[in-house]
């Protein structure tokens, strides 16, 4: 109704309220309101962090304990026999270290390749109208509808027949099949939120459709791509069922299988399992902290200006 108000207002500039006349300008209240808002937000964040973090903290401390201490009652966070022994046991075992290398190779490859394939498919879904579009769309979404557990046997036979059994490409392609539908759905969603005028303008200027995708859409969609990339990385990083079935030697196995190898017939190496999980998570946390920047920049102001 009041189109005149669209003049850019710096976010920090106080909204005077006089303009709409609905709220009297009471400075004190606005400060204390802000304080209440900050307190409430912090309380919410801390409660959430407790829910999310407490079990992980428990895992972290358990990874230093001796096995009987993990089961001691009353439970204690720090125990007298806590030591680095579980970590040393893993770090001194080249076989275990190999699991980490394998996990990184596979997960990174999956994240990069999935994004590469998915942005193109998403571009087609978002910007093109073509016969059979909804059928292809349904097909892409519903392929992931089969419970992986039942797919195991025919899938295993197929991978063996293709010569991909116990190889990196076997695992990578498998995970891509599982991550692609998600990546395509999400990237299509992100592309749909970007106005069509953006790339159409570029097309009018003579850019090819491929160029419009790579030079206009992809740079804007980076936050979406990072979160999709994180997700695909995590799927591959944590996947267990197929990693177990499609590999047979230690030089191809990933961390989740390494952890399961610590679950013996008669007993588990509880502390080493925890330690392995901590060791596996640390680099991923760093990766996450690093990539967070991309969420933050965001698409906030840029998209409408051009």
């Amino acid at each position: 109704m009041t189109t005149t108000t669209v003049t850019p207002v710096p976010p920090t500039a106080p909204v005077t309220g006089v303009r709409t006349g609905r709220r009297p300008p009471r400075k004190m209240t606005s400060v204390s309101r802000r304080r209440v808002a900050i307190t409430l937000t912090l309380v919410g964040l801390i409660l959430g962090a407790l829910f999310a973090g407490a079990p992980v903290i428990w895992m972290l401390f358990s990874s230093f304990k001796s096995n009987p201490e993990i089961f001691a009652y009353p439970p204690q966070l720090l125990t007298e026999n806590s030591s680095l022994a579980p970590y040393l046991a893993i770090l001194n075992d080249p076989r275990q270290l190999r699991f980490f290398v394998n996990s990184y190779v596979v997960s990174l490859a999956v994240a990069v390749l999935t994004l590469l394939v998915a942005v193109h498919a998403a571009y087609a879904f978002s910007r093109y109208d073509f016969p059979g579009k909804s059928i292809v769309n349904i097909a892409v979404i519903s392929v992931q509808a089969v419970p992986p557990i039942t797919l195991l046997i025919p899938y295993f036979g197929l991978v063996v027949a293709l010569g991909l059994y116990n190889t990196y490409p076997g695992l990578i392609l498998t995970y891509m099949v599982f991550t692609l539908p998600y990546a395509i759905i999400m990237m299509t969603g992100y592309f749909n939120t970007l106005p069509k005028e953006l790339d159409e303008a570029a097309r009018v200027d003579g850019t090819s459709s491929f160029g419009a995708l790579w030079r206009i859409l992809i740079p804007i969609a980076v936050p979406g791509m990072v979160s999709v990339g994180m997700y695909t990385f995590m799927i591959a990083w944590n996947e267990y069922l197929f990693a177990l079935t499609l590999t047979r030697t230690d030089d191809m196995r990933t961390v989740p299988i390494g952890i399961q190898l610590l679950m013996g017939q008669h007993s588990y190496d509880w502390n080493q399992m925890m330690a392995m999980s901590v060791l596996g998570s640390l680099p991923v946390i760093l990766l996450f902290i690093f990539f967070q920047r991309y969420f933050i920049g965001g698409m906030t102001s840029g998209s409408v200006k051009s």
Partner: protein
Amino acid sequence: MATLGVAALAAGCGASGGGASEGGDVTIEFMQWWEPELPDGEFAALIEQFEEENPGIDVELLSGPYASIKDQVIAGSASGTMPDVLGLDGAWVHDFATQGSIADLSAAMSDAGYDDSQLAAQVQVDGSTRMIPVVNFAYPMFVNNELLAEAGVEVPTTRSEFMAAAQAVTDSGSGAAGFIAALGLEKPNGINIDIMPWTWASGGTMLSDEGGPAVNNEDVTSTVDFIKQMWDAGVIAPGGLTMAEQDKVEEFTNERVAMMVSSLAHINLIRENSPDLDFSVVPLPVEDGYTGESGVRYASWGIGMSANSEHPEESWKLIEFLMSEGANGQLSALANGFPGNANVTPDFTESDPLFEDAFTIWEAGYPVSEFTGLPLADELMRVFDEELQQVLAEDKPVDEALGNIQTEWEGIF
């Protein structure tokens, strides 16, 4: 051209065999869960010894987690990628044999002119041997002496004594329970470990004379009644309905339970984790008034051969080696089990004195492993476990539950 081919082949084998081979021309795969269970490097050393004694044969060890090795074998069998030699559990033998995945070892033995009298046991399906137990693990009763003493009771020898002892421990205020049963359904072998041994110890059976199911007979009924009685009295440790064998032993180690039926393999583990724990291994209590011999439940690391192996002779050689007196004695000592070769006398001089006690129990009774070689043995246990859970948690009448199990089992047999 020919030289080139040979060179490439040798290089290929060298790479896969881990370097130590001298121009070996046959590589056989051996899939098992034993290597991770044994002290680091020991199993590989044993296999290396085999490779030295048998130039021309390389063994590639494929070690998997115990919990998933069966699924892997099934998947491998479905797609023709079975390993040549594989570790077997008695519960799988019948299934793999009827699916045609594992070879007839009787034939392999006669082909090789092997004298099978030295084998302590062979597991047969339809009259032919499919699995040979390599190492056997007896399952006696473990008791925490301190908890029993605190409760003022002796080591029980009959069920009613056991019930009284369990009650006394639970009531003693130590916070410990009398007995523990791991009845989780992920792996329903709690039936085989914690429940049925009570029947077998009193000379009972769950099978008919013809080998069919007879699970609703008096022997089993009295066992389930007994378990139910303990459950209702609250002397069984909480959490049992989703517990696994590995959790059970931690409860015992942490002195939260006074008595459990468990594998000898746990002796060293408990010692290692809780050096001061004062515990013994004793025979499983019997039904009041029973004076006959006791059946001692055992489990095995079995070995078998793929039916489609391209190198059956070399595969048999590996099995023969693992069953030979030297290697078998060594392996059973490492695994803390009893040897599968009947001529090996276990040497307890260097092991925990409890092993000698266990061996005495083992010798005094007769070995039982009724689930071994039965069709769908895991499923049989699962059916039993599901009904038992209803008996315990929902007061389903024991007769009705066992009747249901019997009907389902008859369908499977």
